[in-house]
Structure formats: C-alpha cells, structure tokens
C-alpha cells in the first residue's frame, strides 16, 4: 500500500456539477417525447433516445474528466448540490446530487454501455411493431439509472430505484402477449419489492436516527461525521450497531435488485425480455445498482471496524455474496437456454462483487462491477446476435458450429467468454477477479469464502466452455440456416470486446489506478506491486483453476456433436447431480410450497373469514332485528286487544324507527348524523363543565 499523499477535499460545486442533473433528465425527457410519438415514427424515436443518451455520455465524460483532473492535482473531488424539497414543520426533506469518483466512473460506464446497447437495439428490434414503445421505456430506464448513480439523497435514490424497477418490469413484460413474459415481469416486480420493503425500512430508520436524507452535506450528511458517530453509539439487536442494522436493511434491498440469495429467482426468468434489455438491465446496469448502493452506503457498513478488521454487516455481505457466487455457478452448469446460462452467470458474478465489497472494500467490488458490465453486456449482445442469427432459437442444443457462419460474433463472444472466465494476464476479468480472491485470502474471519470463490471460478470456466462449445463448435443442429447479424449489431460488439480486454490495465497490482482513484490516493506504476507476498502464488493458482475449468469443459463437450435430443455429457455420467442442478436446486418449487402456498392459504382463510365470520355476524344482526320485529308484532296482535292502544303505537313506531335505519334515504342518514353531533357536543360541553 502506498502512503497517501494529503489530498485536500473539495466541496464547492463546479459548473459541471451544477448541470449534472441534465444527465438523467435528458433521457427522461426524450422518453416523454417518444411516448407522444406514433408507432410508425421509428427513426425519430431511435434518434431521440440515442441522441439524448449521447449528450448524456458527453456530459458524463466531462464530469469524469473534471474528477480525474482534480485528482491529478491532488484534490479529492466530492461536489454536491443539495436543495430543500419539502418542509414539514421543522423537518426538511432534502434532495441533491453528487459528483465524486464513484459516481463519475459509474456515470461513464452506464451511459457508455447504455449507448452501445441503444445502437444495438436499433438492429435487434428492427422488425418489432412496438419499436417506439421499446425506446420510450429504454430511455426512461437509462435516465432513472443515471439518476440512481448521481443521487446524493437516499430518498432521490429510492425514487430512481423504484423507477428503474418499474422500467425493468415494463421491459421484461415487453412482449406481454407471451404468458411467460408477463409472469416473469410480475415475478421480477414482486421479488424485488420484497427487498425494497427492507430498503424503505432502512431509509426511514436512517432518517429517524440521523435526521437527514443526504449522504454528503459538508459534514452534516448521514455518511459522514457526527451522524455516523450517533448511529454507532445506538445499539440494535444481535450485537449490531444501528449503523450496521441499517446497512443490512439497505443491503437487503440491494440483494433484491442484484439477485443475491435468496432473492435471485427473478433474474433468470427476466430473460423473457428482449435481449438488449437483458444486456442493459439484467447484466450491466440495473442489477449492478445493488452493488453500487452498497458501495454508496459503505461508510455505514464499515463504521466501527477496527483497523484491518471487519464488521458484522460486512461479514453478512461477504457470506451472502460468496454463497450466491457458488450456488448460481452450479446451476449455470446444467442449463440449456443460452440466455439462462448467462443469467445464472450474472447472478454468480454479482455474488463475486458483493463478496468483493465485503472482503476488500469499495474499490475491489466496483472494479469487478465495471469490468463485468462490459464483458457481460458483450456476452448478452453476442447471445442476442446468435439468437437473431438462428431465427429466435434460444436452446443451445439446437445450435452448433456457428463459428464459421458468424465469425465476428464468434470472435467477440470468445473474448467476452475468456474475460468472464478470467483468462490470465490478457483479459480484464482476470484482474478484477484476482482482486477479490486476494482480498478473500487475506480475510481475517474465515478462509471458507476464499475456497468457495476459487471453486466458483472453476465452475465459471467450466460452464462457459460448455456453452461456447455447444453454440459455436461441432455441427449445426438447428433447422434454418444461421446468418451473421448486421453491422449495427456487430460494431457495438467489437467496441465492447476492446474494452473487455483493455479495462484490465487500470486494475493490475502494478498500476492500481482504479483503486487509487476511488480511494483518492495517488497512483503510480510500480512493478513491485507484484512482489507482495503470496500474490504471484495466488495468480498462479487462479490461472491453474481457470485452465482446469476450460480443460474439463472441453474434454466433456468439446467438438463432440451429439444430436440435439441426446442427453448432456454430464447427465450421462452423473445423472442425479444433473437433475438437481437442472432444476435449479428446486428453489422455485421450494418457494412455491412455502411462501406462495402460505399466501394462498392465507387468502383462503381471509375469504373464509369474510364469508363465514363477518358475513355470519351481519346475518346474525339481521336475524336479531327480525326477531325484534317479530316480538313487536306479537305484542301488537296479542296484547293490544286489552286496550293498550297507546303503548302499542309506541312499540310500532319503535319497530318503524329500527326499520328506517336502513331506509336508503340520504336524509335519514343525515338526520342520524346530526343527532349524533348533538349528542357528542352536549357530552363534550357537559364533561368540560363537570
């Protein structure tokens, strides 16, 4: 670790921070305008959304350059613009946006990947009749996502967070005429809502404790100074401080969005949406928003840790992340849908990021987020290109030998795949994954996460090899002939492929530019970075693991051309594992017989209560009224004769009054109301006098 040069914090907002709000607002406005367009105006819709996001990208780059320039001059840029939104009595509800290294780097990533995917979508959605609607939603999503990134107020973040969730719902269910898509959209919406409830609770608690919604506000925000100290002194249950408990609640929200165990079930189903959506929302940006959120509230999680130590909250994050990484990777081994394999891979990689955050801090997790965003978007778009080329076929068993038919797609896909596997030295994935492994190795609490993550790396290499050999090697097993996609789709692929390789440069141990940038330290090129004890051994181990995975995969699946219906190689050798994995550990079924069954049971109980208990009570009341009337009649007919005319009249008026209670006349009700007011006022005054 290099010694920190003393960076001076900069707080006053610069012009670029002043107009930072334009970055999310432009795409949102574009989406509003597109919503007003009619369906045939495809070109206008595409131009608008791509243009607005392009301008946003330019602004993001300006912001990024501003931050980098400040950093180069020894200024840790953290500029905020805050304003008061609402005032209830003495309580202020404040909103604001922030420009710091974390948000700057996310801004550039989101708008850049987003722009590429927008361009790609023009080709992919070419024949869809709801082209303009698609771009409307996509623009709205991009705006909201950028909004999440720049929010300096947890409330503003939450608003954008929900907006992102809404657009995700709309886009998963974009082909709503397919029942599976509609169901998947509903599932995604409801599952993430479970997490969001916890997020909301955490937000309310944070507001109640610290009295501010802002993250950073010149020392008065909830992430700095005395607010944190106050949160630390408060003790919640299970030995957690309030800070840790709030952090965990917010992490639950992040887990919902980022598909962490046990809320991962929606993400694979979300692949029912169009492939650009999967690439943008369910691989590169929205699912990463959870990771970003944890990074944003990291001071909360970390608060109270001794030097080199960790906190309960971070330990939980680590365990959840590591388990998710292995769990999802295992499932990915036995899937046949090309997009589902990638989806489980995404869940697994998100687990890596979370584990990275828990183990080694913001920089480790965020670096994997950035590299992953590029290569996973690349893989999804490659998969989309394959699906497009194979005429909407998604089953890997019906593909094969595509490398000669779609050379560009194959080349870029291979790059993405190697980056994801963490192929040594050349690809960015290697460096970011290595950072996480290194942090895991040095973790003070337990070594198990390290072994889990290594095992996950092995699995990753294995299932990716399986997929690639299914899709690109062997003989073609489909029905129609495949073709290469248009250049509007392949050019973004090439650009992303370049970054999938090149991004590794900024995170090598020799030049930890990324980490230094995020942590506000100076970065220098120093080959001695490799000389840290155990580092080279670790690199060797992880390379070995990767090669092992690649070799294992190739030996099982490589260049064999089974018929489409033939059983999988793994299925043939160890069937029981295959069955368990293929059925995703029966998590959906488990939820089906527990949570959903419980709700269904509860609904039946409520229904029964409605029908029998409350309904019975109402019927009972009606019966008693009837009885009362019967009694009256009895008195009328039998007792009257003796000459009780007067008393009888009174009784019948009594019965009449009771019947009039439900006369259906407005004025009767009003009359009773007035009488009640009279009684109430009389009682009030009487009691006041007494």
């Amino acid at each position, binding site marked *: 670790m290099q010694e920190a040069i003393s960076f001076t914090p900069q707080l006053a907002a610069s012009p670029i921070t002043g107009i930072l709000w334009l970055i999310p607002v432009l795409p949102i406005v574009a989406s509003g305008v597109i919503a007003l367009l009619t369906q045939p105006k495809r070109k206008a819709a595409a131009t608008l959304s791509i243009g607005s996001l392009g301008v946003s990208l330019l602004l993001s780059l300006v912001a990024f350059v501003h931050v980098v320039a400040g950093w180069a001059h020894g200024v840790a840029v953290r500029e905020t613009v805050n304003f008061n939104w609402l005032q209830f009595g003495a309580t202020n509800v404040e909103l604001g946006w922030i420009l710091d290294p974390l948000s700057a780097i996310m801004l550039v990533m989101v708008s850049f990947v987003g722009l590429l995917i927008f361009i790609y979508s023009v080709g992919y959605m070419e024949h869809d009749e709801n082209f303009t609607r698609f771009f409307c939603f996509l623009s709205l999503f991009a705006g909201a996502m950028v909004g999440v990134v720049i929010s300096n107020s947890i409330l503003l973040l939450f608003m954008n967070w929900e907006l992102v969730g809404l657009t995700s719902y709309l886009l998963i269910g974009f082909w709503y005429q397919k029942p599976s898509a509609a169901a998947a959209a509903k599932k995604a919406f409801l599952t993430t809502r479970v997490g969001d409830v916890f997020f909301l609770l955490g937000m309310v608690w944070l507001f109640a404790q610290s009295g501010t919604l802002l993250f950073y506000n010149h020392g008065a925000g909830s992430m700095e100074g005395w607010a944190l100290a106050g949160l630390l002194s408060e003790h919640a249950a299970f030995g957690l401080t309030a800070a840790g408990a709030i952090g965990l609640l917010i992490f639950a929200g992040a887990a919902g969005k980022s598909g962490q165990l046990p809320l991962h079930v929606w993400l694979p189903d979300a692949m029912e949406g169009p492939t650009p959506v999967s690439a943008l929302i369910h691989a590169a940006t929205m699912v990463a928003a959870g990771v970003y959120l944890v990074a944003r509230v990291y001071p909360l999680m970390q608060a109270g840790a001794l030097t080199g130590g960790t906190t309960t909250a971070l330990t939980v994050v680590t365990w959840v992340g590591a388990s998710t990484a292995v769990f999802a990777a295992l499932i990915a081994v036995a899937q046949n849908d090309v997009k589902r394999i990638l989806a489980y891979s995404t869940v697994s990689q998100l687990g890596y990021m979370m584990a990275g955050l828990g183990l080694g801090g913001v920089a480790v997790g965020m670096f994997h987020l950035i590299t992953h965003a590029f290569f996973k978007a690349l893989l999804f778009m490659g998969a989309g290109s394959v699906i497009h080329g194979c005429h909407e076929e998604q089953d890997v068993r019906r593909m094969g030998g595509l490398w000669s038919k779609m050379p560009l797609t194959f080349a870029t896909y291979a790059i993405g795949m190697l980056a994801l596997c963490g192929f040594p030295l050349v690809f960015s994935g290697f460096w970011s994954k290595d950072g996480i492994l290194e942090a895991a190795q040095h973790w003070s609490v337990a070594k198990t996460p390290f072994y889990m993550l290594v095992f996950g790396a092995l699995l990753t290499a294995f299932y990716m090899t399986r997929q690639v050999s299914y899709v690109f090697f062997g003989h073609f097993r489909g029905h129609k002939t495949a073709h290469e996609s248009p250049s509007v789709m392949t050019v973004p692929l090439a650009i992303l492929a370049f970054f999938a390789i090149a991004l590794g440069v900024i995170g090598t141990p020799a030049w930890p530019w990324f980490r230094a940038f995020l942590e506000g330290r100076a970065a220098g090129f120093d080959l001695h970075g490799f000389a840290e004890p155990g580092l080279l051994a670790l690199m060797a181990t992880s390379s070995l693991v990767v090669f092992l995975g690649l070799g294992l995969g190739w030996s099982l699946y490589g260049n064999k051309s089974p018929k489409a219906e033939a059983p999988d190689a793994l299925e043939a050798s160890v069937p029981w594992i295959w069955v368990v994995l293929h059925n995703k550990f029966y998590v959906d079924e488990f939820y089906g017989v527990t949570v959903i069954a419980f709700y269904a049971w509860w609904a039946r109980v409520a229904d029964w209560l409605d029908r029998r208990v409350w309904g019975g009570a109402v019927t009972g009341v009606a019966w008693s009224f009837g009885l009362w009337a019967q009694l009256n009649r009895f008195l009328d007919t039998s007792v009257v004769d003796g000459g009780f005319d007067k008393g009888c009249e009174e009784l019948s008026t009594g019965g009449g009054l009771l019947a009039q209670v*439900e006369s*259906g006349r*407005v004025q009767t009700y*009003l009359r009773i109301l007035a009488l009640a007011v009279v009684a109430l006022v009389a009682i009030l005054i009487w009691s006041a006098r007494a």
Partner: protein
Amino acid sequence: MTPLTGYLLVAALLFAMGLAGALVRRNAILVLIGIELMLNAANLNFIAFWRYGPHPEALTGMMFAIFSIAIAAAEAAVGLGLVIAIYRHAQTTDLDKMNRMKG
C-alpha cells in the same frame, strides 16, 4: 354580547338553517345548497376565531377557510354532477323517491 359571540351565533343559526334545508327539502339540489350553507357557517367560525384568536398572524383559521372554500368548489362540482347523473337515470331529483339503496 361580545363581537365574537355575535359571529358565532350567526354561524350557528346559519348552520342550523342549512341543516334544516338539507333535512326537510325533497329536492337533491336543495340538499346540496343546505350543505353549502353549513360549510359556509363553519368558515365563518374559522374566520371569526382567526380574527379574535390570540395569534392572527399565524393565519391558521384563515388558511382553513381558504382551503375549505377551494374544497367546497370541488364538492359542489362533484355533487351537482352526481345529481345530474341521477336525474338522467331516474328522471327525478326527488330524494323521497330515491330509495334504491334501501337495506
């Protein structure tokens, strides 16, 4: 009699008149007129208490009255819309004949 008592008595009388109108007239529109009168009587109370209360600069009573005027406009629009809709349906605005909700 102090001024405030005078205003309060006028308001109470007006309220009672409105209530009587709402209770004794057959026509639904007249019932609405009665309700408007009652609302106005309440407003008069608010304003009177604002004027003679200890903190007129806090504007609480005044604001209440202003908001109540705004809401009364909405109430009148919706109420009369309902009356017209019922009239279209039943060809009458006589409340004595409107008892289809009878229990």
